[in-house]
């Protein structure tokens, strides 16, 4: 099981992702420069957070044209796993690999704090160690996490159980108060129809050690490992 962490110009969570996979999960992992196109040796690709291309024009708008992104559809077709975290999620949206788009947070602030998210679908490569309704505590750190999609698109996401995480309060209730950024239907993470490509705004790599305040992010990384072992 080989993990690959993609590095774009302006990525800044790549080292955290590599650290968690290598030093906490003891899994083989290496960086992949965004211009590299050889993905055969990898089983899971991580698109990390950061500010690829300085967030110029729109978040992820330029990174989506990186050579590596062109390889993702084939990687997905082979049934391998892709997880885009924060800016990685934004890139997947701009690339059209996930539906919808990100708007600026409704309070027009960059928000950096711990939030609660609820697992809405535990039958995915990314959540198989969770139960439905489980509450995870993880930090968010973004300016554009206000997910938007038209009514038809939202209906499809719900019908296909593509919404994997929603922001909630500490009791697991989906409320407007627990929605940090104005995101539609409290959406914090969605996956593709096939269920092997996830976009998530909160940072599991920043919440994988108790020293950092939460280990809940490990549920996601360990779920991927378990899924890859069974594959």
């Amino acid at each position, binding site marked *: 099981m080989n993990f690959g962490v993609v590095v774009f110009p302006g990525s800044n969570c790549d080292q955290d992702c590599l650290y968690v996979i290598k030093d906490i999960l003891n899994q083989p992992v290496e960086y992949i420069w965004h211009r590299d196109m050889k993905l055969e040796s990898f089983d899971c690709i991580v698109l990390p957070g950061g500010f690829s291309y300085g967030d110029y*024009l729109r978040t992820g*708008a330029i990174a989506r*044209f990186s050579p590596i992104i062109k390889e993702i559809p084939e990687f997905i077709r082979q049934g391998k796993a892709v997880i885009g975290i924060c800016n990685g999620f934004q890139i997947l949206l701009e690339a059209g690999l996930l539906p919808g788009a990100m*708007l600026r947070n409704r309070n027009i602030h960059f928000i950096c704090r711990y939030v609660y998210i609820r697992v809405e679908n535990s039958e995915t490569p990314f959540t198989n160690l969770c139960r439905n309704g489980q509450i995870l505590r993880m930090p968010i750190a973004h300016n554009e996490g*206000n997910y*938007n999609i038209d009514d038809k698109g939202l209906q499809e996401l719900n019908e296909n159980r593509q919404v994997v995480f929603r922001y909630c309060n500490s009791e697991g209730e989906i409320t407007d108060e627990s929605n940090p950024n104005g995101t539609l239907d409290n959406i914090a993470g969605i996956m593709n129809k096939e269920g092997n490509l996830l976009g998530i705004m909160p940072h599991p790599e920043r919440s994988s050690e108790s020293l950092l305040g939460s280990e809940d992010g490990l549920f996601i990384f360990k779920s991927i490992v378990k899924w890859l072992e069974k594959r």
Partner: protein
Amino acid sequence: MLRAEIQITLKKRVVDPQGSTIRNALDSLDFKEVEEVRIGKLITVKLNLKDKKWAERKVDQMCQKLLANPIIEDYSFKIEEA
């Protein structure tokens, strides 16, 4: 040489948090007549082209491919001699 001026705006159905913040700021500055504020982007592109029709086609492609996100944004442009 031609010059394209491209205007990108958020779609009507999309909430514009920057716009509403500025609306509130104008309101607190006593501009009570302000009903709504929407923020957009203005992009100017100099083109090594002579034919306006061809330039329109190319700029339209640029908007669709990169400059605007059709899910949340609308765009319009005009092309003039630079």
